[in-house]
């Protein structure tokens, strides 16, 4: 409580755990019986995976978070937040946006959720701009080339 926020910020999703740490978390889940392990243990492992540098591990982490979401209705609000962060980190902005939207829809007053949503939207926008810029650049290049060709052909 003192040093730990109630929910992680986006920065908390970075800073990978060591392989040993991750493996301890996994062993813990396994020792509790895999699918029937407690939510906390599974979350620990999932979050550890999300923090990882490896995109595949992150994906597995998000998948585990989805399972937690499905299984424990009481934890759903929380899980949405984690899911959104996980997808954000993965670059799955469309998914992240879905989760963030759902979260804000259920908790319109939650500042943290709104921040997250804004962040995701911003990201999508910049990505979109980037895409548009790319397309635009491509078009310009094509036009230039065509113009060049045409100009060459004309005389």
């Amino acid at each position: 409580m003192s040093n730990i926020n109630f929910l992680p910020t986006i920065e908390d999703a970075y800073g990978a755990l060591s392989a040993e740490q991750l493996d301890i978390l996994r062993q813990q889940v396994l020792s509790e019986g895999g699918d029937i392990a407690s939510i906390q243990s599974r979350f620990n492992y999932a979050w550890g995976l999300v923090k990882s540098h490896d995109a595949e591990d992150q994906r597995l982490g998000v998948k585990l978070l989805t399972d937690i979401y499905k299984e424990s209705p009481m934890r759903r609000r929380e899980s949405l937040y984690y899911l959104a962060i996980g997808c954000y980190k993965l670059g799955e902005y469309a998914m992240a946006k879905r989760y963030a939207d759902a979260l804000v829809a259920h908790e319109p007053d939650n500042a943290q959720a709104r921040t997250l949503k804004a962040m995701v939207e911003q990201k999508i926008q910049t990505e979109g701009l980037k895409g548009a810029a790319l397309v635009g650049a491509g078009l310009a290049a094509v036009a230039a080339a065509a113009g060049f060709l045409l100009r060459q052909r004309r005389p």
Partner: protein
Amino acid sequence: MSSGTSGDQISHFGKTLTTTASLVFGSQSMEDTILSYSSPYKKILHDTITSSGGTSSLMKVERSGRMFTPFRTRNSAFQDIFHASSGRGYFKNGFSDTRTSFQVLSYLSDAMLADIPSSESAAATSGKLVTEKGEKGKKKRAETAHARGPSLYQGFEASLPTINQTITTHQKKQIMNRDIKSIRESDATPEDVGQDVDIEKGEEETTHDEFTLPKGIKPEHLSNSYSIKNLKGAVQTITDNLDLLEIQKNLAASEIRELDLKMEKLKLMRDLVFRRVAKIEQNELFLEKHLMNIRERIDMIEEYNLDNDTDAEKAYEEATSAPEDTKDQYSELPDANTAESGETVVQEPQVNLASAQKSLKKRSKQTGYSHKNHEKKVQQHEFRHLRKTYPTLQQYYEPGANILSFDSAHEDNVTCLDFNLPFGTLCSAGKLDPTIKVWNLSKNKHVASITGHLATVSCMQMDQYNTLITGGRDALLKMWDIQKAIDNDSIPSDEVCIYTFDSHIDEITALSFEANNLVSGSQDRTIRQWDLNNGKCVQTLDINFATGGNLSRSMIGSGFLNTNNDHPIIGAIQCYDAALATGTKDGIVRLWDLRSGRVVRTLEGHSDAVTSLQFDSLNLVTGSLDNSIRIWDLRTGTLADTFSYEHPVTCLQFDLNKIVVANQEGTVKVYNRQEKKHWFCGGDEHSENAVEYVRYKDGYLVEGRANGDINAWAI
């Protein structure tokens, strides 16, 4: 913008994919949980114990020095998500790249996204989220966190320090412990499964055996230090540590809540399955009954050479007997639960069978008793080859659970009762009423009343085939075919009675039959042995021991209409083959050899009248008015054990697992022979309404009480 729409398209595509995928996977996992809930854990247990050929994973880890990877590269199936050491293995398949399959597998449907509980606690969470962010101060935060456990993320952060500690300090040892733990834990019930933090803490406690202060703080430094700054630093560290511990505590608490929820769910599931077992079992009994009838019919045809393939006769019989018989048959169909389809299938034979039974009855009436008995013998012979399904439902009740109750089954106290198999038929008799009542234990209702005795029925025994033998104060022993009464409630009682054994000259107090042997003990101080094949008395054994002045009193006192409760001379009797055991008023248990008609052994020890006894191949258990039960070893003839109660024991029964005792208290006393534990079952300990009589078979206990109530319990 364009990527936004493309993202939507992807998610839309994903949606269609997932609905199919989730249908496939979802239904499968559902089946898994229902059919074999423990299968994932079993697999892991198996993996843990038998990790490639004999050597346990523990040993292997130690030897090879690979600390953390005993499970790696084991399984990459979809279901074993936790076995996949990285995401790559898990999402890999032949059809799409990992990203697509990830999107499909971790897709949440819109309905699921929308379905977020908005209960009070959830509202509290949302409020809390705001306050968390709103920097309202530590105190408030702590309060709200108390209101509903910490978040998962907090739990994660809180468990990190212990994990790091695990790694840095005694590394090897911890890993070993952990693996041992993992084996032990997956062996245990889910409730025992703690979480990471708890285990770490537990280990800490066992290894250090005491709690330590946080790093860098030493008690002697604190007590000797005069630097306010240092001390304040220490205060800060310890406060932080306390906060951490608080989180861990809350985590564990929320874990418990979670487990409670899970248990609740499992309980619901158990109830469902339980009902399914009950239904199946009823169906089984129903079918079996008809199978029995068909065999009987075949038997009858064979016996009288009536084999006739032309349908004329059948049709004739059908026409004559169909109307009333079908009605009868239907009236006792095991209610709507039984399969509809089964009903139509069996309907045809039913009619024939009913008529067959009728013709059997007619014939046997003409040929008289000996034939009837023969018929019964054939029937019994037939049963030996019959596939018999045994009811198992009572095993799935919680021990001590009340299965059913018949309130005020009799007007006065229940003198005796017996039932054949659990959820089968129960017969009972009351004190002031010479009728025998028949109950259906699976349908929980009264099916028939049988009259015939002239006075109180004081003892009875019933076998698997609904044959009942009763003995009463009218000095008569009667043998009944209860099935007839069940099949047709309006049948006159003298047709239900197969035979009356009439030789005793005083009240019959105990009887026992087995195979073709019936023995009965009476107040006329004799034991008679009867042959059930011809109804003849084979031998008479005299009980001759001195009861002093009691003799004349009991002779006078036990008139037919006398209802005083003088304790019987022969309190209990049981025969098996040529062996006979009797428990008598003088407190002595005698073992007889029926071939010679002599007492082969006497077991002395009880200081008052023996009221009940039972023996199996090893033990003889006797209960007496001296408040005790004694367990004798039959091989050595010595006392093996004895228990004392607060009131006189009136009735007992036992099997290999349990001894059940009625001792005129409000509860049935149960002794668990395996665990050597005493407990009691049913009702209020100090109830006025004492248990008079008890019968126990296969974990199914039926007791009759002083006010006429009859209850069945699972123990």
